[in-house]
């Protein structure tokens, strides 16, 4: 595999609020290579979206601030970059598509103009030139009769078409890395598959790195090369997708995997992880997952959280008993 495009190392993001400091992201690490798809997996509130926004440099500061760690894009450190420098990278080298395209698109500007804007602002294209290129990108993402839909407004598009328009806007300048923050959650199941397929197509055409933020394990199994599992702002486990599905080294990941229905589990209850994720203002001592962990022992309940340690080639887990979990009987 070619050299890595993006490396996130031990990223820490804090929110300073009236009720105290919340550690929304507390040590997240992963990397993305060209053509690779990295899935970031976790329940809501696990810090997935915050991580994505930190990479994009679009966190609202304050209340948020990057408290530590590093984000390197093509070898260049992004943490600490000035807003002006960061702006030139966004859209150009790294872009992001959002969950709800209806609220993420400007309601009072036509879809076409919002796409054409990328060429005008980043590339200095003329109005007509930008329009032609925008129509081309719209066609590329499968918007039928793109030229005649150029002047339509977001609310006149269907949900699937809006998400396609959003993708068109963000891949317009052929970024090296595309972050997709739950791109299909707001869509019908049939449309979901189409959008994922579109993302894969685009990826194979341009060899871009794709960071797919999701809680949909089905999609992950289908498209991801690499997985990062997050819990309470931390990476709990990361590794190649087959490796993780085959020999999970973390009880949390196992819990997630057990909660997907399969053909074999059609009868009886699906096992769910008991309890709720902790408040970011009051993380439990020791391993953050211990109150919900079936394997928790005394060591997990006190002192420092375990480190993220390598358990196999490119496979890391944050668990005192990673080896033990790996050896125990796996699911499939």
């Amino acid at each position: 595999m070619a050299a890595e495009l993006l490396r996130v190392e031990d990223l820490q993001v804090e929110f300073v609020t009236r009720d105290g400091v919340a550690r929304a992201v507390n040590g997240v690490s992963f990397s993305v290579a060209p053509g690779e798809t990295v899935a970031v997996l976790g329940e809501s509130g696990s810090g997935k979206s915050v991580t994505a926004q930190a990479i994009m440099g679009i966190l609202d500061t304050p209340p948020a601030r990057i408290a530590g760690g590093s984000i390197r894009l093509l070898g260049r450190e992004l943490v600490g970059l000035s807003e002006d420098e960061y702006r030139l990278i966004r859209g150009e080298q790294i872009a992001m598509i959002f969950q709800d395209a209806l609220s993420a698109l400007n309601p009072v500007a036509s879809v076409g103009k919002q796409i054409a804007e990328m060429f005008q602002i980043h590339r200095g294209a003329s109005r007509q030139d930008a329009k032609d290129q925008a129509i081309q990108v719209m066609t590329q993402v499968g918007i039928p009769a793109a030229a005649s839909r150029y002047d339509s407004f977001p609310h006149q598009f269907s949900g699937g078409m809006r998400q396609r328009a959003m993708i068109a806007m963000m891949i317009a300048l052929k970024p090296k890395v595309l972050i997709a923050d739950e791109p299909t959650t707001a869509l019908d199941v049939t449309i979901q598959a189409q959008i994922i397929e579109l993302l894969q197509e685009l990826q194979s055409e341009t060899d871009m790195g794709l960071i797919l933020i999701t809680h949909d394990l089905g999609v992950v199994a289908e498209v991801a090369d690499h997985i990062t599992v997050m819990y309470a702002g931390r990476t709990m486990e990361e590794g190649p997708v087959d490796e993780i599905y085959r020999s999970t080294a973390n009880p949390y990941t196992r819990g997630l995997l057990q909660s997907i229905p399969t053909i074999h589990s059609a009868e009886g209850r699906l096992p769910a992880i008991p309890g709720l994720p902790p408040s970011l203002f009051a993380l439990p001592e020791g391993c953050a997952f211990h109150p919900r962990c079936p394997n928790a022992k005394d060591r997990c309940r006190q002192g420092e959280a375990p480190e993220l340690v390598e358990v196999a080639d490119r496979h890391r887990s944050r668990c005192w008993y990673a080896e033990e979990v790996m050896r125990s009987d796996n699911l499939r």
Partner: protein
Amino acid sequence: MSDLQVEAQSAQAAGPESRTVAADAWYQLRRNWVFWVSVVLIVGISAIVLFPGLFASEEATTSLTGGCQLEDSLEAPGDKFLLGADQQGCDVYSLSIYSARTSVSVGLLTAIGTTLIGSLLGLLAGFYGGKSDSVLSGVTSIFLGLPFVLGAVVLLSSVDLPDIWGVVFALTLLSWATAFRLVRAKTIEAKGQDYTLAARALGAKDLRIMFRHILPNAIGPSIVVAVISLGIFIGAEATLSYLGLGIQPPNTSWGVMISEAQNAFFTAPWVLMVPAGFLTVTVLAFILLGETVSDALDPKLRK
């Protein structure tokens, strides 16, 4: 709201500190000094309205018992008259205190009247829908098509109405439509909610649904609007009285005082500025109270 804040908030909600809307609103209000300023002002104004004798002597406001002497006409603020005297030589401060009752009563009665009429009609129209709703909503847009002070000007200049109740009647008749729109919208919203549908499925009667399930949802915003409009109606009364169409002497209100003081304004500004000051502070107090409560009830505006 961005996902980010939602994430932060849901993380917060999962913690031990989750609160109800009302408790959260009260938590917000308690820490808001603007709210306390308006409360203190309104308590003060209420005291003046209820017990003017505590603040001034009625004798100083009338020439009947010899309180006002013409020789004191337009006397400047000083030892004899704290805030000066008017043309008749009456104490401007005492007059302002004794005028509060009329000004505030007109505002209060109008606010109550518009809220009752508007809410009741809005509740019925929103609940039953259909023809009665279309008719009432049509009538509402007609009333909203006539600026209410202009309408009151037409009514009060063409029809002979008793002064205080006439002003209340005119203002109420011409401005119930706002409360109607609000309550109707809230009713339609609450009607579609699961708890209303559930109550209906359990066989609750219309009246019970309206008063137990729908009204509680509409009452908060209506009261907030009523408090703000109370301030606005006090101002409207002053405008009408200033134009000579509102309260008629010998009854007195801040508007009447301002109207009578205007000719002497350049020589004796205090005669106008004192009642104008009372008026402005009172209007401001009600608007501030209404707005701070409304902000506290609206989670969208949380910082």
